[in-house]
């Protein structure tokens, strides 16, 4: 399984930022089984990084690897949408399919 490279852009320590970080960490733990690198960027501290990536909304999650590059915006509270947005097929489904065979 290829390692996922993720970046999460947030605005300061707001409740919404915290929700997004929690949701993402939970998802990474459950669905990516530790096969990921995650960096969290605070746009208030590093606005130029937000400029470079042309980020408008926060929180924004960017998946750099594996290609293609994907973006998800919002506090990531809808897990299915996040998985869909990142092109991640949940392992639970994989095992389910294998089991069906």
């Amino acid at each position, binding site marked *: 399984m290829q390692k996922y490279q993720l970046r999460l852009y947030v605005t300061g320590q707001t409740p919404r930022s915290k929700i997004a970080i929690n*949701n993402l960490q939970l998802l990474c733990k459950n669905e990516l089984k530790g096969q990921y690198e995650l960096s969290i960027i605070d746009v208030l501290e590093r606005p130029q990084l937000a400029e470079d990536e042309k980020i408008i909304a*926060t929180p924004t999650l960017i998946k750099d690897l594996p290609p293609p590059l994907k973006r998800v*915006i919002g506090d990531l*509270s809808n897990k299915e949408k996040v998985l869909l947005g990142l092109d991640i097929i949940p392992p639970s489904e994989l095992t389910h399919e294998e089991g069906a065979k």
Partner: protein
Amino acid sequence: MIKKHMTGIHGFDLISEGGLPEGRTTLVSGTAGSAKTVFAVQFLARGIIERQENGVFVTFEESPVDIADNMIGFGWDIATWESEGKWAFVDASPQPDEVPVVSGEYDFGALLARIEHAVKKVNAKRVSVDSLAAVFTQFTESGIVRTELFRIAVALKRMGITALLTAERTEEYGDIARYGVEEFVADNVIILRNSLAEERRRRTIEILKFRGTPHQKGEFPFTVLPDEGLVVMPLSAMELKQKSSDIRISSGNEELDKMCGGGFFRDSIVLVSGATGNGKTLMVAEFIKGGIQNNERCLLFAFEESREQLFRNAKGWGVDFEEMETKGNLKILCMYPEVLGMEDHLIRIKRILDEYKPNRVAIDSLSALERVSTGKGFREFVIGVTSFIKHGEIAGFFTSTTPSLMGGTSVTEAHISTITDSIILLRYVEMMGEMRRALTVLKMRGSMHDKQIKEFNIDHNGMHIGKAFRNVVGILSGHPSSTPPEEMDRISGLFKE
């Protein structure tokens, strides 16, 4: 009292009585193609060029590269300004490769952080955001978008920035803007219109409201010039405070001078009205000849004839335009009225007046211009030209062609007769199987004048005014008829004691 921030946009600072409200956001709303983006860019460009005020441009629609490319034609070198740290883009335009998936709540915190960052980076005083409608197409959760844009507007105000936000509208006369954006930037609203009237485009700008600070009301025409951008024509904002002198100048014709009580006044506008071939252009030629003889600088706008035609005809009346032009005291500009819109004609005329600084200006003819304009557009043009001429202390000489051969008036006269100081009528008189020419001074403000209707002839020396048509009545109404001499004597004796 809210201070105003001079924009440097020609005419706009006049109708807004000093510019945009300082430290506030102003909404500029208009339909597609109403020059919103040009206005937004020009606001920043004028700040950089004229006032050393740097700007930030937030774009939701076009990419920064496209904007820089599109605006270079106006002489605004955005790329250079960017490298000099005078201009910064915040690129929020849609990225072609991806449509982000939305999962849960979000805000525009990143965008706000980027705007604040850019403002600090270039120490900006001005911010333009173009356009709000595009945000709503990028982000479909309109409730969130509205609150977030409101936050940005509040933040700009807190930073003390004078900001301009553009918004889309779907009709020229309808809601202020789509998506109800006016609700969160409701303090100041400007509307740009690009309406179609009689197959012609007419651009106008209206300041709908400036909260807590005065401005001119109503629609003002504007045009977009290739090398300048938006130019507003502040017609009704122009003040009627021109000087008027009692210095007389020669009309170029001695007999006409006598009829006018010693010549035209120097700062007056004279309108000559007559049917085609009646001698209007001849009078223009004489008017210019009179100026040249007095060592004055003359300017002629010809909208009916080509230079060659004009030169040849004038030679036939003993006036050598070619020689006058070579000597430098005359400038003749020939152009078909159809070439430009009315607003552009007006601005072109103003520029030439400013450059050439003439003592006399003739326009031959106003009716040719009227052909290509709407009634309102033409009226504004005439008021504009008259105002420029009067402010420059220039003598103006306009001609107008009447539609009918005998008698009658033209609409041109109806529009401008109150503005002109003198009106001279030229008429054909049909008598005994012959077409003769008549001239009368109908009006001459501030002076006595000859009230007779006189006959005139044209030869190789120009115009010769002769005797009055004593025994003919109905010349001006177009139905001349002779009256026997005995009857004339009886009528003229009626009021004697």
